[in-house]
């Protein structure tokens, strides 16, 4: 395997990969989805837990610090106030309390000596008022509780988180024990919220990154798995196409390498088997070729002598022993059959060996068909429907073989009249279509696919036919070498129809520099010997 091939295959694999990535059920997609889900679950749960813990820690710490300060301030400042302070005193105390390090807003509520409720406010932009304190908190703060062992104080410090205008606040309140003002504080938690927000963002981004990373990893994993799988697929396809020398490069020791090794072993075994079979096939083919070749030599001698016998028979009846005469006739006719058989056998072996060649010539199809029919004395039995002037560049001898076999077959099995028609469409480079139709019983459906098989007999009980059993198969081979085709069918009106389709110009199949100078590897030329009753040769004067 060369570099170039490898590159090409890589490119093909890439393209294939793109295609399979698009497929919804592809392994790659499934891997990506699974990886993504795993990454998502892990990232989301980890970030969620982290966020929650962080949030609690941050809020609690901030809250604790604020509340501690508030309590301290309440004790120090509010506790120091008289039981019924004036508005001014309250206001000042609130201002002092708010000035502590935590910077919360403070609201002090007390009753002055006149029993009027007075408010001390730390001020600030929003102006912290009693309405800003949730009712529930106020109630909880003002409720006096029983003093027990577990609960040593009648009042407690309560706090609540509220969100106002999108800003979170911590609101807390308490009373000074032993009579004093009720104090409320509000502290914006915005900085903490901002911190938590940015934490959430970072965690979200981290999750996203983890997802992308998972997808990339999945891709990589899919590629490492799928590439060898794809290579295996390509190799298997090539093997299926008959390129038995296809092998995979084995790298690594994983399961895929094992698979590749198994594939290679299988391919090797297959190649060996096929080679063995091909060799056996070749041998038997060569044997048939040699055999028919060898048969020809004695057959030539026998044929030559048989003709002498035949002439003796035809000369004057009675000159031969009546006991011997049928024997001589049998020898003569069987020799002719044997001749045809050997001839056909050799034709077949030539096709098998691929040594058959076309000898092209321009012919008028109507003339050619007429000559073929005429030469075999079939003119009365064949109805030719062909216009003169349809020219084609074909091998006339091979066309003759095809026609002789098709028409001969039609006459033998279908009976006359046999209709031969030639059609050619007007299109450029259109095929010539020659139809041979008989008026017999047609071909049984189960025989139809086998009519072109060698030595195929419709049934074993059928009487031995005149032909060699190779005729239609040879006709088919002759059509193929022209780049044409023969099909067999039954006509709806009864009778079998054989359709021969030939390209008008067969020279595309052979490379000949100049038709006038062609003297190279032409085809076998053997005038008029097919079908037995050829009229080859003329009697000399």
């Amino acid at each position, binding site marked *: 395997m060369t570099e170039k091939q490898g590159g090409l295959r890589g490119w093909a694999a890439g393209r294939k990969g793109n295609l399979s990535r698009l497929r919804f059920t592809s392994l790659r997609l499934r891997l990506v989805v699974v990886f993504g889900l795993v990454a998502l679950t892990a990232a989301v749960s980890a970030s969620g837990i982290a966020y929650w813990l962080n949030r609690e820690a941050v809020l609690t710490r901030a809250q604790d610090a604020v509340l501690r300060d508030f309590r301290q301030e309440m004790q120090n400042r509010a506790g120091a106030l008289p039981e019924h302070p004036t508005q001014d005193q309250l206001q000042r105390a609130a201002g002092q309390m708010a000035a502590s390090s935590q910077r919360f807003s403070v609201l002090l509520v007390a009753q002055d000596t006149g029993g009027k409720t007075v408010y001390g406010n730390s001020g600030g932009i929003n102006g912290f008022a009693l309405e800003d304190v949730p009712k529930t908190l106020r109630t909880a703060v003002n409720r006096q509780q029983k003093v027990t062992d577990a609960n040593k104080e009648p009042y407690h410090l309560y706090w609540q988180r509220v969100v106002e205008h999108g800003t979170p606040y911590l609101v807390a309140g308490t009373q000074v024990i032993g009579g004093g003002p009720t104090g409320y504080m509000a502290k914006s938690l915005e900085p903490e919220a901002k911190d938590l927000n940015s934490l959430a963002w970072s965690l979200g981004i981290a999750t996203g990154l983890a997802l992308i990373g998972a997808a990339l990893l999945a891709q990589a994993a899919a590629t490492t798995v799928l590439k060898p799988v794809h290579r295996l697929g390509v190799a298997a396809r090539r093997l299926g196409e008959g390129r038995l020398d296809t092998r995979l490069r084995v790298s690594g020791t994983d399961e895929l390498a094992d698979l590749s090794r198994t594939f290679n072993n299988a391919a090797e075994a297959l190649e060996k088997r096929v080679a063995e079979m091909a060799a056996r096939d070749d041998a038997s083919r060569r044997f048939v070729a040699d055999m028919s070749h060898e048969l020809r030599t004695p057959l030539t001698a026998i044929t030559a002598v048989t003709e002498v016998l035949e002439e003796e028979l035809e000369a004057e009846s009675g000159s031969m022993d009546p006991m011997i005469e049928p024997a001589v006739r049998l020898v003569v006719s069987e020799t002719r059959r044997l001749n045809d058989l050997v001839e056909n056998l050799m034709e077949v072996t030539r096709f098998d060996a691929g040594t058959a060649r076309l000898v092209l010539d321009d012919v008028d199809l109507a003339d050619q068909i007429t000559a073929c029919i005429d030469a075999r004395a079939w003119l009365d039995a064949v109805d030719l429907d062909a216009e003169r002037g349809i020219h084609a560049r074909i091998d006339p001898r091979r066309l003759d073989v095809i026609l002789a076999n098709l028409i001969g077959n039609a006459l033998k099995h279908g009976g006359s009249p046999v209709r031969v028609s030639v059609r050619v469409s007007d299109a450029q480079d259109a095929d010539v279509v020659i139809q041979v139709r008989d008026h017999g019983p047609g071909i049984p459906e189960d025989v139809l696919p086998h009519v072109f098989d060698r030595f195929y007999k419709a049934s074993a009980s059928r009487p031995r036919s005149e032909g060699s059993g190779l005729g239609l198969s040879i006709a088919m081979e002759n059509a193929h070498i022209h780049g044409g085709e023969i099909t067999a069918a039954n006509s709806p009106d009864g009778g079998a129809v054989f359709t021969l389709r030939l390209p008008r110009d067969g020279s595309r199949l052979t490379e000949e520099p100049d038709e006038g100078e062609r003297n*190279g590897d032409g085809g076998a030329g053997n005038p008029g010997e097919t079908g037995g009753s050829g009229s080859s040769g003329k009697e000399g004067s």
Partner: protein
Amino acid sequence: MGQNVRVPSLLLIEDDDAIRTALELSLTRQGHRVATAASGEDGLKLLREQRPDLIVLDVMLPGIDGFEVCRRIRRTDQLPIILLTARSDDIDVVVGLESGADDYVVKPIQGRVLDARIRAVLRRGERESSDAATFGSLVIDRSAMTVTKNGEDLQLTPTELRLLLELSRRPGQALSRQQLLRLVWEHDYLGDSRLVDACVQRLRAKVEDVPSSPTLIRTVRGVGYRLDSPQ
């Protein structure tokens, strides 16, 4: 057969005893005088002694093969030669025609076919009653059956001569290969067009000034050949 008083004598060169005997028997019955040889060397020796009218030559011979025999005969002689070939050896036909054979018959041979071919080849040498024709420096004397180029006699085989005569009878007119096969070789409708091509090649080699760019015997694409007077 009556008018031909002289019985044509043939030389059959064939190594297989059975075929040789059978063909000798068959051809003798057809009215030929047959001499036989079992090898190319014997055949060439016999040829010098007897001077037959025609040679029937098997391609597959022990020692020097049929093609070589054909080539050696052609070096000195324009005798008609018919090859017996095995058709499965497709290249045989081409090589045979290139080595100078006039015609070929494929095994298994039908005696009648061989006889017809022999008679057709022999007829080519028969004289015609006609005058002379001139094509440039080429002069064809139909009555004397001679062809001269620039006054020099050309050694043409009967087949080459007959081909030239048929072409010269219709100067400027294209003749198809099949037509020529019928006229010259007397083949039936299924003649092998390579016979024509091979013979034209040989004829050009003798007749044309530059055989590779012929001015007399021109190829007509898709049809066949034509004899022109050089411009």
